[in-house]
């Protein structure tokens, strides 16, 4: 016996439109918050760390000696770019900042919440390679987060290396 199911079709269309909206909303959220941020200068780690073979601490000079890795001062960039590749648009932009004595406002990619206390020095001294948390930055043109940096992940690593997982180690 045939039943009239045509009345259901508008509800089905509405249901799938809601699902499409949900997927769109998730995509928008991800795009807005998780994609590699656009930086004021299109700096390439691929060229500097991979092609030229510069060590991470060549630019992030305080990573091994303090809590913060620090972004390099403009002076460090200009040591080479006063004479190297000066005609490239991004270097022209860089020189503009230098001449105007204006710092570059880089967008922080690896940001932890205020209640988590992380020190670069402690990890580097313990022999943790930069790539463990930052991934193969030298292979990326524009840096993005490749680790979740969630507490569970940090705790997994601490457990595997038999390091304290007391709350106060990171939250103090």
């Amino acid at each position, binding site marked *: 016996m045939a039943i009239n199911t045509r009345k259901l079709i508008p509800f089905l*269309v509405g249901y799938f439109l809601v*699902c499409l909206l949900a997927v769109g909303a998730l995509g928008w959220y991800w795009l807005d918050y998780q994609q590699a941020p656009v930086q004021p200068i299109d700096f390439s780690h691929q060229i500097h760390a991979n092609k030229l073979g510069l060590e991470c601490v060549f630019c992030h000079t305080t990573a091994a000696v303090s809590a913060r890795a620090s972004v390099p001062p403009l002076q460090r960039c200009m040591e080479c770019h006063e004479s190297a590749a000066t005609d490239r648009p991004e270097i022209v932009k860089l020189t503009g900042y230098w001449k105007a004595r204006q710092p570059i406002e880089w967008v922080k990619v690896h940001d932890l919440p205020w209640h988590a206390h992380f020190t670069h020095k402690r990890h580097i001294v313990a022999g943790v390679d930069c790539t463990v948390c930052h991934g193969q930055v030298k292979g990326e043109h524009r840096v993005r987060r*490749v680790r979740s940096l969630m507490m569970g992940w940090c705790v997994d690593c601490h457990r595997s290396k038999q390091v304290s997982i007391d709350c106060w180690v990171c939250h103090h």
Partner: protein
Amino acid sequence: MDILKDMLLPPGVEHLQLLPVLIVFMLWVHLPFAGIAWICNLLSLVFWRRDPAAARDLGRVAPITWSTVGIFVVLPLASLLFLFQHYLYGESVPVGSYILRLAPAIVLGFLLLALGQRRQQAAFVAAGSALLAGGYFFFSSVMNLVFTPEKWPFISRPVPDVFSVTVVAHFKVFCVLAVLLAGAAILFFLFRWPEKRLPADAPHAETFRRMALAMVAGGSLLLPVFMIWELYVAPEPALSLSAFWLSALVLVLLAALAIWAVTMLGRTALRWIAAAFVGALAVSGLLILKDHSLQAVANQEHWVLLNESSARALAEWQGKRAAELAKNMVADDKLGEKIYNDRCTACHRFDQKVVGPPYNQVLPKYAGDAEKLKTFLRNPVKVDPAYPAMPNQGLTELEVASVSAYLLKQFEQGK
């Protein structure tokens, strides 16, 4: 597993491009068949006592024979084992070993189903179905592991971790997709395919028609919920725009399938059955592609390392070959001067530091040993930590010979 590692050579650049295509293809060969066979056999248990003919007919939808098990189960699983082992070459994650441990359980599950259908023993079918349910739960976990590389260093158990919300979401997507595919397959094979078509007077034909349409409609309506859940809990570093676009495409196909199934429920004659079956297969293909997009994004850094190592091996081989060819090459003085002016002077002077060190400081160690300088120019490496490494200039052998001869000549004259 060391034996697997020993069996494989590192993949080349071309292999790296081909591997994902083969993985997606093998998963697409295996998973739809597995899902259809599993659900149809589970359903046959419902009909087993009250209508044995109906139970047998459900077993005919995805017949489990030596050839189907070989083509749709053993071959893809064996290929996936080696493909993933190659795909994750050099990493500590034991995906290949996990598949190696899971594959016998899955194959045994299919053999039990075949035995149950042949001997008409419900217990074998039930045991086979239960084994497959467990096997694919662990299989979901293995696939999930591929796109969560941050967990790789902490794996210590011989079986994959199943206590994870992402694994549960992944498995539920597989289950609902299997129901949808099985519904479409029942309609296609028992109502459309000439060799398996049910006779018009079969007593359970109407029951099957309604049940299969309800499975397609129900699967199409439920799949978006689990798919969105899966996207929501997927690791953020693995997501990309293509995952969202593929999900949207799946939703459009599911909407078409749901509208078709609901419309057909209201009619007595079935139409567009083949298109619906192809649509259901397309949904499974797109979901596998979506998973692949997560894996590809999550494994970018692993691929950078693999690409680097294969490019390095190729460069070393080319360097050796070029060096052999260049033994009798005659340097061209004018060409050497031109390269010096065009390229070298951007970073070097003889008597002062620019970006690189002054020549008067570095050339003495090459004096009288042009071959050593040529080797460096072919493949420059960082020597002095006070200076950045010199980029590879991509010079031909004649250019290397000419510029090294020119530099050494200028250095000797300037002494």
